[in-house]
């Protein structure tokens, strides 16, 4: 997208077409995405790919109803066709009073943003990247029982240009980077995985420095050894006990039991047929004790390295920081422009589309559990019997976001405040508000990490979102442990 004036001319043409066809409001988003993936598996480079895709999506509003059309044809004819199609779709929705009615947006922003990058990945020769992964993957094969070693790097660059009929002109360039390793150990009718960092790798906004921060080489041998040792480890016990969750597992816990629950489109029933609804309700704002006073969760789409960090969302709203849970009390939701209007608030810029071809929708973006005030090691103090769990392996929660069950790759027994022997197949289960109210300590900022989730599914057609849940490890009391293996 080097020729931005030309895109502006394209945009104005498409917006004019939409208006001429009857749209009261229209917006257009051009995107060019580039993704590179390298994956090494058992010494072979099984993925070495470089994909690009560019196109645009237009949203048009007619009589308060939306239509969205997207195309990869940015010629004059293609723009006119897509604009006309968006209006036609909006009219079809509005006809017969069957479309939802939304007020015409009035905001206009002019601005630009580029992800701060310490080292542009393009300056790292491809051969060096491949060699790095081959070397790291070799280290995973610490014992003969390691059947599969994997190491990968994802590099994503996205250019976005946004224009609307109110005069918005927004230009943004995002760099997002991820890398990780995993080892699969196979024994007698048993297979045990270990992944690092976290459960999908370390995914953040930024350049090659994110790969360096993952410290794959420093940890590969340990991860391979842990996978092997898990084959011989005792089964995690079942029962009610205290639990410490590692930072990446807390991140997933936030994602599933707070992030999705607080999406206002879901609360309003828009996702009812697929992703589900939510146990939350606008009436609960300011009254529901979501968690203990140790639990404060914020949307912060400007935080450095957050995977969803951006200056403007995909309907052109400027990013802000806003509270979702303050000292345990529910105070906010993740909102779009129109859902916020419906409850008398303003959008907190939580709208994203997967690509140019996808309609913008509410996403949890960067949803962070604020760090607590105790060092990580102090979380173990006072636990008589419990389990410390790391790296998610299994995750499931009901369609109201209440009843959940998660499993981790690895656990350690805790006895009298000390971390003890390794445990395999640790799982735990609970109900969202009760669980967060059982949180009595969150580790401090020294173990706080901007954990990214590169593969969040939502919507129909299904969209894969890139979100973050910055978190540090946390302690939960009297949790049901060992579910799924206790029968």
């Amino acid at each position, binding site marked *: 997208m080097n020729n931005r004036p030309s895109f502006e001319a394209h945009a104005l043409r498409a917006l004019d077409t939409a208006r001429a066809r009857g749209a009261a409001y229209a917006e257009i988003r051009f995107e060019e995405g580039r993704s590179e993936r390298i994956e090494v598996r058992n010494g*072979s480079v*099984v*993925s*070495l*790919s*470089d*994909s*690009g*895709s560019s*196109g645009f999506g237009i949203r048009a509003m007619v009589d308060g*109803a*939306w*239509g*969205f*059309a*997207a*195309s*990869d*044809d940015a010629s004059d004819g293609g723009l006119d066709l897509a604009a006309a*199609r*968006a209006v036609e*779709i909006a009219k*079809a*929705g509005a006809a*017969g009073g*069957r*479309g*939802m009615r939304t007020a015409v947006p009035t905001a206009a922003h002019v601005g630009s943003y580029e992800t701060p990058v310490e080292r542009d990945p393009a300056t790292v020769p491809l*051969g060096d990247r*491949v060699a790095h992964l*081959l070397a790291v993957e070799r280290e995973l094969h610490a014992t003969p029982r390691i*059947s*599969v070693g*994997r190491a990968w790097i994802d590099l994503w660059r996205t250019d976005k240009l946004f224009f609307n009929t109110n005069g918005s002109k927004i230009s943004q360039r995002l760099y997002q980077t991820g890398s990780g390793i995993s080892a*699969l150990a*196979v024994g007698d*009718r048993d*297979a045990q995985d270990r992944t690092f960092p976290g459960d999908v790798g370390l995914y953040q906004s930024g350049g090659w420095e994110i790969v360096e921060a993952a410290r794959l080489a420093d940890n590969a041998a340990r991860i391979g050894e842990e996978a092997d040792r898990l084959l011989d480890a005792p089964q995690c016990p079942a029962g009610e006990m205290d639990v410490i969750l590692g930072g990446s597992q807390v991140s997933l816990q936030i994602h599933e039991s707070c992030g999705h629950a607080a999406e206002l489109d879901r609360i*309003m*029933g*828009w*996702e*009812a*047929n697929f992703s589900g609804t939510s146990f939350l309700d606008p009436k609960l704002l300011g009254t529901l004790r979501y968690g203990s006073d140790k639990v404060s969760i914020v949307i912060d789409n400007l935080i450095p390295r957050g995977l969803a960090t951006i200056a403007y969302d995909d309907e052109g709203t400027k990013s802000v920081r806003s509270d979702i849970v303050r000292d345990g009390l529910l105070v906010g939701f993740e909102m779009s422009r129109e859902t916020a209007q419906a409850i008398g608030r303003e959008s907190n810029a939580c709208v994203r589309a997967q690509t140019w*071809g996808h309609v913008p929708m509410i996403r949890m973006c960067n949803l962070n559990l604020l760090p607590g005030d105790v060092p990580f090691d102090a979380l173990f103090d006072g636990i008589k019997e419990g389990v410390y769990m790391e790296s998610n392996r299994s995750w499931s*929660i*009901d*369609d109201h976001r*209440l*009843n959940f*069950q998660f499993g981790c790759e690895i656990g350690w027994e805790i006895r009298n405040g000390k971390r003890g022997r390794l445990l395999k*197949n640790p*799982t735990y*289960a609970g109900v969202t508000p009760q669980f967060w109210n059982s949180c009595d300590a969150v580790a401090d900022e020294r173990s706080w990490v901007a954990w990214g989730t590169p593969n969040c*599914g939502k919507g*129909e*057609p299904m969209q894969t979102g890139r979100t973050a849940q910055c978190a540090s490890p946390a302690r939960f009391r009297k949790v049901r442990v060992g579910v*799924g*293996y206790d*029968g």
Partner: protein
Amino acid sequence: MDKGAREALGRRILALAGTGEHEAVVTSGDDGLTRFAHNAIHQNVARSDASVQLRTIVDGRSGVAAGNAFDDAGLRDVVERAAALSALAPRDDVRLAKSPPASPSTSAFVASSASASPAERARDAGEIFGVVEGGGLWAAGYVRATRSGTTVANSLGTLASFDATECGVNVKANGDDSTGYAERYVNDFSLLAAREQAAIAAQKTLASCTPRAVEPGDWTVILEPPAFGEIVAYLTDHFSAQAYDEGSSFLSDGLGRTVTSTNFSLTDDWSNALAPGMPFDYEGTPKERVALIERGVAKAFVTDAYWARKLGRQNTGHALPAPNAAGPQVLDAVVSPGTKTTAQLIAETARGLLVSRLWYVRTVDQRRTIVTGMTRDGTFLIENGKIAGGVRNMRFNQSILAALGACEMSSERARTGGYSYSMVVPAAKFERFTFTSTTDF
């Protein structure tokens, strides 16, 4: 983009790539979806896209690049990037082959469905609203019509093309304290029968109102096709040659063993009339019909060119698009029917549960095929062979193979699907299915 245009594009990029081994995969799609909630349309979208992907192999080194700009400059860019990547890849046993033509698929593409309009989708949505409003309910769901095309061409002369239309209606009817679900997936938009699906969803909602709590534990359970499909979807990845070889599959303990009841047979069959699939894979190899489990005995796994060579097996034609770290995969699962109707299976159940749909099923233990998940949108108590009302939703933890150890399939089958699968399954009755917790709804 039609078949002719895709094939021309494939030939163009292969010509630009020049000498050497190259494989082009050209895909195109037009997707229209109308989504609704509270008996009103809230999302109405259309998308047109096409892309070309090139795999270049030089002396066993392969690189893949893709793009969606089809002028000469755009295609040259893809060619150059694929060449640059292949030059840096380590050498592996990767080769192309010339594939024979695949059997033509005759029923996957319905020309009239390719042009289904937003107005037609809105009309169907309106019919759904009318039905559920009659019961004092509100609907959430979608009406979808898509057209897609795939062409695989390689420098050895392989050329295979496939076009399909896929249409779907998905209805969740919502009442004060209960919900119900129905779905239908077809290739012909005129066969969607949206009104009929709305009526089924509404009936389930009304029949499950004021749900009672039942105790978790071991239950006899009948899973309707959308629910059973979710379970089968967590079994199919075990049948990849890669999973078999690497030890993550239950098949790694050996083929030829009895793994389920004789009442269960699973096949990969692209030609099933209920869900006609692509007759070749993403390397252009014709797909074999593969019996995976036959009357309870584990018979085979699926392969692609790489894994067939590696394991000394026949290539069954189950390659995914390159680059593919997941190995060959089952994409057209078909479960054989039984002899009794679902109504008969219910009538023969003294006490059990009838489940319409599952949600958030995830693997707990891959080798032991233990999965967890929730019931949703219509869960019923069966007492003395009759539906005795709705029950609150529950969480299960269950080994799939253990459940299939004592099962019976219904005689009626349906096409069902999720965001990562499409398959043909009957309803399934399990003697023992373990629930571990309940909900308040």
